[in-house]
């Protein structure tokens, strides 16, 4: 296979045609288009053919800018003099902005597979490659998992060039570097690494590029695939590369000194490095005024803590430490549990699994059936389970409330990890109450602090100095007082604006 692909283009067009037919299996693949044509140069007819895959390139462009112009050479071009036939074809016939030449069949085949049209000319041992990509693709739409009320409503689509253009629209900085790396042995896909030169830590950029260029695989389909290839701790339950689908968020992450990876055919960009602090931030935080932002952050922290610990605390309390409850609550609990035959822990686990099933079902079923699944699962089954004394009403409240809290997380992907941790905590608290729960918390913190998101640990330092502490990072300050970039990004340029960014305060007359 490799020796065949490494052969060079012949001067004889028939040999080239034969080689292309063999390599592209044109007798088997219906979408391989090979069009032979002639053009006139120096009063001689020159044979040529072009080849491309149907549906991947702009057919009108081929007709108008290659075939039509080739035909027009038969009328009168006698006065036009060029050094060679190839020179004539390149400068007179083809009028495409992107034009490459190649002798290597492997490269030619790769280019044909990547939306290029290849043109061979008789008597010339090189092939012309024109990028004429025209896919059928989605238009720039609204975000799906990062929807917000305030802020921009644009989201990436599956075309890399559109996505990079969207990012360039926000970051009008010539220092924004978008480096391209091709990955995939069999089906090559384009991956880009984006960073701002002089701002992003070069060590992190180097590390990411090194990891990407040393991937040896057949195919990389999306950014998520790529993320799994380059992340440090594969088996950690916490994702280490933060996904986002909003170009404005990517722009703000780049400006914080982070690196962004993006692949062709993927509407999701991966942000590196990311930490637990990012779990508390949503896409619209940058647009909200500071007081609302503060309240929202408090709510999110409460939501995360509740989602993680509430079921485990419930199990630990009712199983081991019932005496700490006020008497009236303990009595109510006992009354609601009177006829329930199964232990607390089984109750909670059953209900949690039911909740997960409901969540999965709602994602899979058609949109119009979704609400019905919610009503049947959430209301009817829950209500019936309590009435039939299978589940205690307290458990229903706990599980329901936990579920709501889990949905309050701005970063949908991080909730996968938290959900897994929650089950571990439930089991631990059943084994040995608060002592085991404490061990679970330690385990969670060990996982976080031992997981690396290329460049930093997921758990950043709690406090380095007054400008670098986690409280300040979680509770976003007013826009005018965000002088420092997040310390965990380890940006080369640590300051984003001077201490006095509102100079009008001094200009205005009192």
């Amino acid at each position, binding site marked *: 296979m490799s020796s065949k692909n490494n052969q060079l283009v012949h001067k004889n067009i028939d040999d080239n045609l034969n080689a292309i037919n063999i390599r592209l299996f044109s007798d088997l693949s219906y979408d391989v288009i090979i069009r032979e044509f002639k053009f006139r140069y120096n009063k001689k007819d020159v044979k040529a053919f072009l080849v491309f895959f149907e549906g991947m390139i702009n057919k009108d462009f081929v007709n108008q800018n290659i075939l039509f112009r080739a035909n027009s050479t038969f009328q009168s071009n006698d006065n036009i003099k060029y050094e060679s036939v190839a020179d004539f074809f390149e400068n007179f016939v083809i009028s495409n902005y992107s034009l490459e030449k190649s002798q290597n069949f492997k490269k030619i085949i790769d280019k044909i597979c990547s939306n290029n049209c290849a043109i061979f000319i008789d008597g010339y041992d090189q092939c012309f490659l024109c990028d004429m990509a025209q896919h059928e693709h989605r238009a720039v739409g609204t975000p799906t998992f990062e929807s917000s009320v305030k802020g921009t409503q644009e989201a990436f689509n599956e075309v890399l060039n559109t996505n990079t253009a969207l990012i360039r629209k926000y970051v009008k900085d010539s220092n924004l570097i978008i480096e391209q790396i091709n990955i995939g042995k069999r089906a090559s896909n384009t991956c880009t690494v984006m960073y701002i030169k002089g701002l992003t*830590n070069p*060590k*992190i950029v180097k*590390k990411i590029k090194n990891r990407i260029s040393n991937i040896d695989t057949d195919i990389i389909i999306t950014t998520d695939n790529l993320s799994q290839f380059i992340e*440090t701790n594969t088996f950690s339950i916490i994702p280490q590369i933060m996904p986002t689908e909003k170009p404005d968020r990517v722009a703000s992450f780049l400006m914080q000194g982070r690196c962004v990876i993006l692949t062709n055919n993927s509407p999701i960009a991966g942000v590196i490095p990311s930490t637990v602090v990012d779990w508390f931030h949503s896409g619209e935080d940058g647009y909200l005024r500071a007081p609302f932002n503060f309240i929202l952050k408090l709510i999110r922290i409460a939501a995360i803590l509740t989602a993680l610990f509430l079921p485990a605390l419930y199990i*630990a*309390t009712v199983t*081991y*430490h019932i*005496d*700490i*409850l*006020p*008497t*009236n609550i303990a009595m109510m609990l006992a009354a609601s549990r009177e006829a329930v035959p199964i232990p607390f822990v089984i109750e909670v686990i059953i209900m949690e699994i039911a909740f997960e099933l409901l969540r999965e079902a709602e994602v899979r079923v058609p949109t119009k059936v979704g609400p019905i699944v919610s009503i049947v699962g959430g209301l009817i089954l829950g209500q019936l389970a309590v009435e039939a004394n299978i589940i205690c009403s307290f458990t229903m409240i706990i599980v329901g409330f936990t579920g709501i809290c889990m949905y309050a997380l701005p970063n949908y992907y991080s909730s996968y990890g938290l959900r897994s941790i929650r089950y571990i905590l439930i089991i631990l608290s059943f084994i*040995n*109450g*608060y*002592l*085991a*729960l*404490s*061990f679970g*918390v*330690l*385990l969670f*913190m*060990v996982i976080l*602090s*031992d997981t*690396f998101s*290329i*460049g*930093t*640990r997921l*758990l950043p*330092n*709690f*406090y*380095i100095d007054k400008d670098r502490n986690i409280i300040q990072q979680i509770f976003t300050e007013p826009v005018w007082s965000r002088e420092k970039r997040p310390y965990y990004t*380890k940006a080369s340029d640590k300051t984003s604006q001077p201490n006095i960014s509102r100079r009008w305060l001094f200009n205005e007359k009192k």
Partner: protein
Amino acid sequence: MRKNSDYKNISYVNYEIISMFFTLLACVFISYSPIRIIERCGSASIIGILFISLVTYIIYYIIIKCIFKNEYDMFSVIKKTYPPIIQKIISVCIYLFLLLYSYLLISNLLYNLRASIYSKSTLFSISIFFLVALYLLNKKGFNVIFRIVGYVSIIIVIYIVFLFIMSVTKIDLNNFFPILGNGPKDVFLNNLSNSALFVPLFLFTFFGGKVAKGKKRANYKNFNLIMLIFTILYTLLIFTFIATVPIEIISSRYTLLLDLSSLISLNPQSFKLVPIMIYVFSLIIFISSSFCILCGLYNIQRLNVVKDYSKYVLPSVIIMTILFLIPIPLSIYNIILDVFYILSIGFTFGFPILTLIIYFIKNKGRSKKFMQDKNTPKFIEEVD
């Protein structure tokens, strides 16, 4: 990949080292130590704790000044003071001492828990979590412990302050009289034996130099802050104990903090603080005991007994497991505690003072000031 056991890869910031040593010292809150102080000083316990804190601060300030002015850390001092064979014996002794300290830290909490909540469980069955945590944290190394402790130490402060605020309504100022408690001799002289609670300061001599690199005074500042925060909180705790529970009752109790946590609540119908106490203190014991063993292992690596300590994590945990498998009656346990108190004073104060005296005699006129590299950044940014 970075090797956890490599000395050069250990990185922490000033806040983390303060948190670590405060957490280590805060383990005494749950131990027998407050009761010992109250037994000794009576109603003058606050004066007692302030006095021993002050004495320890003065002594240790001199020790730390002597070490870090001339050398990088305690190991450099030991290496320049003793011949290799003695160094190895010392390092093994320190390791065994820290192993015992770690065992006592865990068993203190376990005896507390068994006396109250887990009365039907055996000591070993509830110690399993601690042993797993020991193994896990020791395997992950110093960096992970330092990172976690930054978050955990805040909880202790909040808990103690919360305990104090909740007990305000129950304060009985009569408990603070007579002011000099059991008499000046007990408060100022006999009470000095309680300074054994400052064992963790011995470990400070292992690490201080690394933070001091780049900023000479950071080390002393860290030490001052550790002592200040600990003294304030310990005083606050002792104040809460004496103000809410009569001294005669305190002397007869063993699980003081646990009793207080179950006693204090906003009203009889509200939730009790016991689970929070278990949660907070088991978390700090997980970290503190692991740190002690890690320090012991690090010590034998630095003093060239072993090349890479990470291979000895499992044997250390196995030794701890065996210790927990041996059933020890409370009376014998108390004897071990007494012996440990004497050993602690020896290791915390005696050993560094003796070593420094020999060091200065041996290196008289030859000692050079520890070179401070001003270009080295204070906070080492790791890119992994």
